[in-house]
């Protein structure tokens, strides 16, 4: 290109950001919500009991062991899911009967913490919960899998390019971090974009790279064909190995109690580690095996790959699966673990959430900056080109419309009839119907006014959620705060905080609207990114 490297990179930063901004914003909003998917899912199933303190691992195993030995002595397998790490609040046991004609039945029981007895799992309304939001951040919605892989993959690649080119453009990273010239129109938007980007830079770099690595086998499956040919299945088996399942010896034998294995599991995984699931194969048989699956606490690496396999009769460790078996596997597992953040405790989880929000702000201010610069450049009195006006309206529909749509998703969870067929799907339809309505709204409203009005709607949609919750369920702030259930209370408090942010922004925008156009002044600070590059 004719101009220098920095000008080229400024141009690239602008256009790559503009092309991928809307998709990346969607990915960041839904992915950030995903860091609290378990808490969101609990809020969306208000029929479930409040949180109770989780007993010690050995105590839980003793209860589960006793119940299974009594109720499922002849089962083919037992499975015990533990409420440890990021795995909910239920102590859940299930087992499978080998039926006479090969038909198997699986039974599931959940402990009732009040009585200490196992019972049928409690039922709750059908909902996609926080998990559905989380899945959307890579799977999108209403599109085939291949399409979502390509769109999210290419946009993530563009984000990586935008990071590199953005760094080239803004050499003075540290100075930018402490620079905010408020109230000066375009320059304030630029500073806001810089501050959000630089503050969250380590997170953004990490989350972009790790997201690409996480999904690389879907996005760039180039090595699979040459290396594996028709043996596609072996790829999964080599990446996520499973233990062999021995046939029963059909000879009864006394199994060691489950809690017997806890010290040795801790010895292998560290004191802070815990199992997420325990599987017993051939219980009560001479060929009985016990598998411990890691819960992801106390390690950054992805939990799914750490497993221990014991002989249940004599307690010998038979086999250990770990992701430290080679450097590439360890690298991939660490990237995946960093992306998921399952290892993060409450403080780190809030840091993930906050960094994710900063990422949303970075993308939003970047998109706004594009419009503001175009508007500043338009000749006075000549009116704005149709395309620029449309872009700004679409920006409003994306940046403010999407959070409103997420709020609509939560509203639909409380308002849709509990026995509605396909209820979970309709919650998701509500999100997209709400989003479409917001796009319709901003297309008929003048652009600057549209900002203030939609921000006000967003404040209302989030701020009234705790009220709606109190009117429709018994798990509202009055109850959850009193019981000290901070996860459930945290949802209501977080949406209130979001409402305050949206409300304050709405007030700010409408005030500067009255004082004259907020983004009118024309100050160009970076090498002109809109200039012709050939």
């Amino acid at each position: 290109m004719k101009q220098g490297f920095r000008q080229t990179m400024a141009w690239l930063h602008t256009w790559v950001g503009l092309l991928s901004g809307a998709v990346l914003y969607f990915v960041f909003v839904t992915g950030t919500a995903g860091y609290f998917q378990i808490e969101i899912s609990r809020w969306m199933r208000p029929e479930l009991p409040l949180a109770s303190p989780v007993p010690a691992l050995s105590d839980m195993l003793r209860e589960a062991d006793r119940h299974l030995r009594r109720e499922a002595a002849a089962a083919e397998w037992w499975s015990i899911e533990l409420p440890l790490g990021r795995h909910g609040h239920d102590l859940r046991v299930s087992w499978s009967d080998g039926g006479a004609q090969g038909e198997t039945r699986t039974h599931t029981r959940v402990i009732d913490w009040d009585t200490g007895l196992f019972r049928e799992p409690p039922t709750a309304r059908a909902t996609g919960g926080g998990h559905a939001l989380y899945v959307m951040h890579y799977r999108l919605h209403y599109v085939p899998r291949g399409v979502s892989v390509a769109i999210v993959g290419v946009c993530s690649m563009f984000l990586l390019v935008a990071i590199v080119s953005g760094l080239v453009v803004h050499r003075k990273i540290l100075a930018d971090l402490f620079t905010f010239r408020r109230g000066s129109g375009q320059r304030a938007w630029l500073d806001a974009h810089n501050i959000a980007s630089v503050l969250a830079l380590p997170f953004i770099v990490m989350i972009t790279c790790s997201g690409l690595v996480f999904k690389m086998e879907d996005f760039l499956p180039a090595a699979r064909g040459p290396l594996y040919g028709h043996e596609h299945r072996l790829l999964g088996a080599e990446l996520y190995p499973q233990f062999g399942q021995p046939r029963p010896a059909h000879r009864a034998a006394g199994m060691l109690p489950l809690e017997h294995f806890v010290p040795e599991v801790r010895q292998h995984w560290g004191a802070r580690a815990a199992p997420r699931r325990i599987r017993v194969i051939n219980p009560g048989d001479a060929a009985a095996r016990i598998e411990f699956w890691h819960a992801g606490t106390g390690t950054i690496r992805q939990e799914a790959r750490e497993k221990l396999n014991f002989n249940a009769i004599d307690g010998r460790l038979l086999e250990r699966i770990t992701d430290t078996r080679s450097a590439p596997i360890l690298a991939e597992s660490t990237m995946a673990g960093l992306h998921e953040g399952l290892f993060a405790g409450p403080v780190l989880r809030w840091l993930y959430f906050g960094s994710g929000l900063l990422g949303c702000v970075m993308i939003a201010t970047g998109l706004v900056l594009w419009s503001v610069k175009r508007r500043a450049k338009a000749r006075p009195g000549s009116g704005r080109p149709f395309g620029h006006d449309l872009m700004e309206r679409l920006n409003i529909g994306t940046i403010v419309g999407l959070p409103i749509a997420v709020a609509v998703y939560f509203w639909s969870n409380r308002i849709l009839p509990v026995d509605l067929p396909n209820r979970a799907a309709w919650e998701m339809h509500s999100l997209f119907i709400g989003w479409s309505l917001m796009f319709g709204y901003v297309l008929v409203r003048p652009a600057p006014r549209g900002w203030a009005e939609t921000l006000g709607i967003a404040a209302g949609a989030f701020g009234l959620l705790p009220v709606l919750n109190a009117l429709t369920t018994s798990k509202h702030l009055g109850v959850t705060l009193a019981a000290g259930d901070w996860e459930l209370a945290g949802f209501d408090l977080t949406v209130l905080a979001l409402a305050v942010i949206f409300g304050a922004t709405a007030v700010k925008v409408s005030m500067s609207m009255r004082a004259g156009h907020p983004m009118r002044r024309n100050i160009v600070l970076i090498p002109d990114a809109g200039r012709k590059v050939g």
Partner: protein
Amino acid sequence: MRPLSAAYRWSVVSRFVAAIAGGYGLAWLFTAVLALLLRDVWSMPRIDAMLTATMSGLLVYAVVIIAVFRARSATRAWGGLAIAAGPLALVFLYAGTHT
């Protein structure tokens, strides 16, 4: 603002196609060739070869996108892609017939 010429607009479109599709193709070829090299020349277990090659391929994709926009013209960008892809394709075809 000066109106942009049609030729300029097309050269930008051409660059984006080169970056997205051309870059993907080059990353694909690079990944496949590196995977085979790692397995056959370096005797890496194939799961390790696959992970290493694919992670490197992602990096190549990002670098190629930037290089395409760094190039002096869209034509030169396409030329660069072809020059890089040629030897990789030859190695890939050779390896395909000899393994």
